[in-house]
């Protein structure tokens, strides 16, 4: 079992952990904002797919990498507006609407891909974000490379966590977001526009999800594949529960999860095909379900999560 443990001592393992965690961190923060405001956003899987496509295509068409990030964010806002309009002022089922948004966003991405690139047999490549080592810090043994020699978009993900935590806990806006997710009627009495805050939170959160998707195509890899999001969105929903709706804990969850994912890939090589590889690939999803079971009882979820708010209705 020495080999199985040695994996933890490789700097490259920890670099992979942070890289795998980055899109999860971004999308988990996005979902967390939505849910804190009381709206479950099951559109996440499709919004990530749309962000992955739009971010990649912007760069493929000659745009700057950061323009790709921006465009991914814009498409996220658009789908956030759609999900928000249907679930907040109209108060439709957040489950059904979210699944609908996922189906729509991912099929639109695939449609656009086929339309814009009808002739390609293998996915075209772009020049993705390159690692940006921070002098001195990246020379720290074992963790230096993992934390300080990543792409700019990974740094952006960590900044996003700090920003989300700061806004949620240190600003009046954050207080309003948390309050509309707990007790919308009381907010209305305080003169807070519940609809506006929820709508804004869903749009901002969806933008982060889309950028998380774009991370896959313009930072982790260099092209767009069908089915490339592959359930990451659903895993992020589990991570929000696992993190008890707190940005810091959710970040920790994402890293833990990524560590497990990176570990199973390397363990596959160590075990050398004795165990079917599908069992390893199953682990992230099994782990997510286990995390949900462990946390479900303790978690203090937003009281008004999934409860549509209609003025004057009790």
């Amino acid at each position, binding site marked *: 079992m020495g080999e199985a443990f040695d994996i933890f001592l490789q700097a490259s393992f920890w670099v992979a952990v942070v890289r795998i965690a980055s899109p999860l961190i971004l999308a988990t923060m996005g979902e967390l904002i939505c849910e804190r405001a009381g709206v479950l956003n*099951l559109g996440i899987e499709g919004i990530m797919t749309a962000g992955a496509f739009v971010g990649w295509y912007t760069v493929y068409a000659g745009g700057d990498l950061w323009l790709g990030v921006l465009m991914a964010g814009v498409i996220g806002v658009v789908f956030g507006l*759609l999900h928000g309009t*249907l679930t907040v*002022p*109209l*108060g*439709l*089922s957040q*489950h*059904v*609407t979210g*699944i*609908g*948004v996922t*189906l*729509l966003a991912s*099929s*639109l991405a*695939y*449609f656009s891909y*086929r*339309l814009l690139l*009808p002739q390609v047999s293998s996915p075209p490549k772009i020049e993705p974000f390159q690692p940006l080592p921070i002098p001195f810090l990246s020379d720290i043994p074992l963790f230096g490379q993992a934390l300080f020699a990543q792409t700019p978009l990974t740094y952006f993900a960590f900044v996003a966590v700090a920003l989300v935590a700061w806004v949620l806990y240190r600003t009046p806006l954050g207080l309003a977001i948390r309050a509309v997710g707990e007790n919308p009627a009381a907010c209305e009495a305080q003169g807070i526009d519940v609809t506006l805050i929820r709508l804004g939170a869903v749009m901002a959160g969806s933008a982060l999800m889309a950028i998380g998707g774009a991370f896959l195509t313009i930072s982790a890899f260099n092209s767009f594949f069908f089915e490339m999001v*592959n*359930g990451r969105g*659903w*895993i992020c*929903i*589990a991570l929000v*529960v696992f993190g008890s709706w707190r940005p810091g804990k959710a970040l920790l969850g994402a890293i833990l999860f990524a560590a497990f994912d990176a570990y199973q890939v390397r363990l596959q090589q160590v075990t050398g095909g004795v165990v*079917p590889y*599908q*069992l390893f*690939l*199953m682990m992230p*999803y*099994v782990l*997510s*379900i286990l995390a*949900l*079971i462990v946390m*479900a*009882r303790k978690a203090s979820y937003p009281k008004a999560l999934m409860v549509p708010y*209609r*003025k*004057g*209705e009790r």
Partner: protein
Amino acid sequence: MRIEPVDAVSWRATLGYPALAILATLAFAGVLVMLAGANPFAVFGLVLKGAFGSQFAFLETLTRATPLIFTGLAVAVAFRAKLWNIGAEAQLYIGGVVTVVLGTGALPWAGFALKPAIIVAVMMAGALVLLVPTLLKSRFGVDEVVTTLLLNFIVLLFVSMLLEGVLKNPMGMGWPQSRRVIEAASLPKILQGKRLHYGFVLALVAAISVWFVMARTTLGYEMRAVGHNPQAARFAGIRVNLVLVKTALLSGGLAALAGFSEVAGLKGNLSLDLSPGYGYTGIVVAMLAMLHPLGVIAAAIFVAGIFVGADSMSRAARVPSYIADVTVATALLTMVAAILLTRYRIRWR
């Protein structure tokens, strides 16, 4: 703006808003077709012709509708009780697994005994797959949406493992596919030389049975009561968790039948392309049918028509066949909004 319930739901609204939803969906699809540089009316014509324009086209649409009726029913039953089963895809594949485990020669029985045995086993297996998330929901409060979604990925990997392991056809030339089901386990074709098989008839029987259960039995009443207001149902003496478990068994069983029908009636064996997302499309079918079991038949044929028609259209016109997926997803969103508007009115003020 505010939104308030209307006192009496009018017939005009009940028919008008869903019609408007379909129109809005077609308009959106039309814009995309124009962006693709084609004439929307010509393209819609081609879709219609490809779906219903000939005997071949219509039979193909019914063939494609068959699994969608099963998954649509599975979703309709579950959603009625507000049990959010998004895992019909997993249940379908498990149904396929059980079909090939029992139907490729392990049970050397005659057809009249083998087929019912397989159907019972398939339904039990599918039920079991949904039972796990349902119990997690009622025991631990774990949201079943996420667990059923995650189970889809787990089950698909499990099937992939089986197809490269114990279920692998040694004569399959290396492809991950199972052996073919024996004659006694197969569903015969309805018309000689055509693809439409008796799975379609089974689907119709299932729809009528589900309608009967929902509309005419105590269980159906309890399911609707639980879906409408669980607290009130509990207060009225309904054992909510038990009703949810029964709902899960029925829903999971129905979704698994889709896998049985596809393997035993159409494909003949199990492979990883058994379903191009029939489990997810079942959600759209159920919502378009407004969760009515008989409506599911019509909605499944409608949705299947879009897919079959778009396939044949995309060969003729240069519009990607993903237009079908976009249209179906749009139809889902516009339809749920339309259903709301029949019961509520918006006050702009």
